[in-house]
């Protein structure tokens, strides 16, 4: 047994962390928000050139052919930096769906672009407040010939829907859940930018009026597996965010003097941060196991992914809230960096189904 990242994975993490700290510092995030940007385009290109976007894509399609755990190492660093990038939508979800159930032709057409960053995909599943897991989607796919057809309906909110060139859309195809691959740059597609709670991850409503689409070979089981895989990556992203919050809160507390001594010397602060540190380590341990299981023990993935997801989001939630609390009033200002994480935490907590959904998955799959 060896329960630690490999030296190569640690190096990859260091590389990603260094690059993101340099290119995507808080000042850059504030600038992007000011510009109303939905994508840090130069950084995205750079990540593509360095191979980060294709880490888990097969070498035959221009990727590095690495494992889920390698990808997770990058997810964690993106969470720490809170970068304004569609990594989760494009690489994890759209790329994951194509790798899992795309035909050879579909993979050849889209995966190299995802790996290089030239193509951005997203996964369109929600339809307003309706429970997208319980019922068939209202968005329908009508076949025209073979796996080709047209889709009609509205998906909302769609993360990174403004910058994506294509989407994997969850549809009702003849009474069954299916994935439709849709080029978003066609006249039958219209997008409306929504007021996204997370200022560094844009959301859109996307309407399809008989838009050309083709089916992927996925069904409800594929969807469940895809969501498990994505939950693992989201858990790593959340752990990265939580670690950033803990670091920030700790540094601020060490720096701040109050009633004649360091704020960090009060047990009210020490104990709070100790609890966050514990929650982060539990979450990271679950995430490591889930990342390993994703590659090596598929039967154990559902429970492992759900546990990682639940503990990571619990840690991030607490860390994001208490980070502002430890900062006091300054934490409420745009110039402090706490708010990026306070908003991102909600994005992660609500995406792919909330706590109840993953609680049920864990109970159902726990031996």
């Amino acid at each position, binding site marked *: 047994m060896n329960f630690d990242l490999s030296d190569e994975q640690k190096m990859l993490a260091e590389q990603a962390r260094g690059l993101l700290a340099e290119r995507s510092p808080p000042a850059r995030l504030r600038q992007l928000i000011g510009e109303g940007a939905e994508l840090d385009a130069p950084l995205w290109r750079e990540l593509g050139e360095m191979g980060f976007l294709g880490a888990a894509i097969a070498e035959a399609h221009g990727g590095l052919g690495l494992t889920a755990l390698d990808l997770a190492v990058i997810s964690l660093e993106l969470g720490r930096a809170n970068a304004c990038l569609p990594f989760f939508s494009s690489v994890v979800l759209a790329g994951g769906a194509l790798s899992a159930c795309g035909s050879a032709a579909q993979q050849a057409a889209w995966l190299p672009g995802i790996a290089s960053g030239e193509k951005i995909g997203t996964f369109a599943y929600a339809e307003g407040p309706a429970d997208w897991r319980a019922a068939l989607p209202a968005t329908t796919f009508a076949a025209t010939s073979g796996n080709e057809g047209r889709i009609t309906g509205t998906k909302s909110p769609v993360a990174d829907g403004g910058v994506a060139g294509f989407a994997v859309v969850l549809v009702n195809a003849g009474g069954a859940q299916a994935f439709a691959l849709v080029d978003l740059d066609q006249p039958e597609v219209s997008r409306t930018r929504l007021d996204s709670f997370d200022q560094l991850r844009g959301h859109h409503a996307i309407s399809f009026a008989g838009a050309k689409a083709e089916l992927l070979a996925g069904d409800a089981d594929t969807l469940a597996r895809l969501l498990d895989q994505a939950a693992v990556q989201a858990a790593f992203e959340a752990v990265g965010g939580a670690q950033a919050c803990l670091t920030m809160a*700790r540094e601020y507390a060490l720096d701040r003097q109050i009633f004649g001594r360091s704020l960090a010397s009060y047990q009210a602060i020490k104990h709070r*941060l100790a609890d966050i540190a*514990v929650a982060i380590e539990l979450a990271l341990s679950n995430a490591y196991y889930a990342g390993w299981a994703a590659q090596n023990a598929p039967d154990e993935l559902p429970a492992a992914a759900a546990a990682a997801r639940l503990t990571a989001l619990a840690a991030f939630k607490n860390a994001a809230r208490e980070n502002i609390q430890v900062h006091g009033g300054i934490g409420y200002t745009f110039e402090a960096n706490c708010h990026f994480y306070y908003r991102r935490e909600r994005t992660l907590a609500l995406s792919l189904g909330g706590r109840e959904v993953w609680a049920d998955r864990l109970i159902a799959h726990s031996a």
Partner: protein
Amino acid sequence: MDFNDTPEEAAFRAEARAWLAAHAPAHALREGERLEDAEEARRGRAWQRALYDGGFAGITLPRELGGRGGTVIEAVVFHEEESRYNIPKGPYITIGLGMALHVLAHHGSPEQKARYCEPTLKGEMTWCQLFSEPSAGSDLANLRTKAAKEEGAREGDEWVVNGQKVWSSWAHHADWGLLVARHDPSLPKHKGLSFFLVDMKTPGVETRPIRQISGASDFNETFLTDVRIPDANRLGKVGDGWACCMTVLSSERIGSGSPREAVQEMVEYIRRTGRGADGGNALDSAANRVALAQALAEERGEKYLAARLRTMISRGEDPGAMAAMIKLAYAGRNQKMLGLGMEVRGLDALAAAPDAGDTLGLHYEYIWSTVMRIAGGADEVLRNQIAERVLGMPGDWRPDKNVPFDQL
């Protein structure tokens, strides 16, 4: 990252499994079997003897001390395999194997190692811990029990010990005690301490069981009145008491095994709790599922964090205060989960029928869960340790630091 056994680990697992299959069933508890304390002690000693004869006692202890000289991972593997059998071992056994052997290995003289290690490994010598006092709990170094030499005594003469210890688990069954006492009150509190091995049958040692909130008496008060301890039973140098205590306590926190999966048992208990008209159960409630799933997820996190720490130890790295994280997480989560179990069960959990073993168990566990948050490092102490040693935050204000004990 690899969760599979290496070839060496697989070979060890096969060896352990075969040996256990041949020897464990005769020692395991039968379905529903409950033991009185004395019988549990006897059975625990018998199993320890079997382990010794089979070469599985003290797996990580060096061979020259009678152990197997194996790795931390082998100890984990053995524990995993052993826990498939419900064998009564008793907490007194682990005080000897976990604490006494650990402190002997680090601080004992060759004579002391030769005298105590083998009988302890064989289960013939059991130990208790004489650390805490009425005014020395989390602040252990505040202890007042005195170890003095008689006037005119010379080096090598015996010590006379007077004082009172408390919370000494199973001291009433133990053969020997690990004692820390103050030899010099003119020194600052941590410096004036020395460590002794005391025969619990020595005149002047009196244990009185404490009536606990559980109704049981696992713990004792131990009164020491003019107890004479040969200088040969001093562990380490005079003044090494605190270092010895730290060695003992570090062994307390790095458990080699994973605890049983108690939350899953709770899930099943709640599934057996009927609700609604048509065969429904209490798991039909989303609120219950969410709370249980969070506990399940945290329990898994504790297990995998332990695996990470063991990986560190097996490489010779020191996980330090990270080991405290598991205990802190476990103790709080466990109490919360047990309380939840009672709430979900409803009024039925308040009054158990004599044959309702699961509900009776819940009563016991919920009471016992309070101990886990206090003993072996209270929640608050562990939070301080994590904040100071892992996060590098400042220590608390300590007016007692560097002040002679008798001037505090």
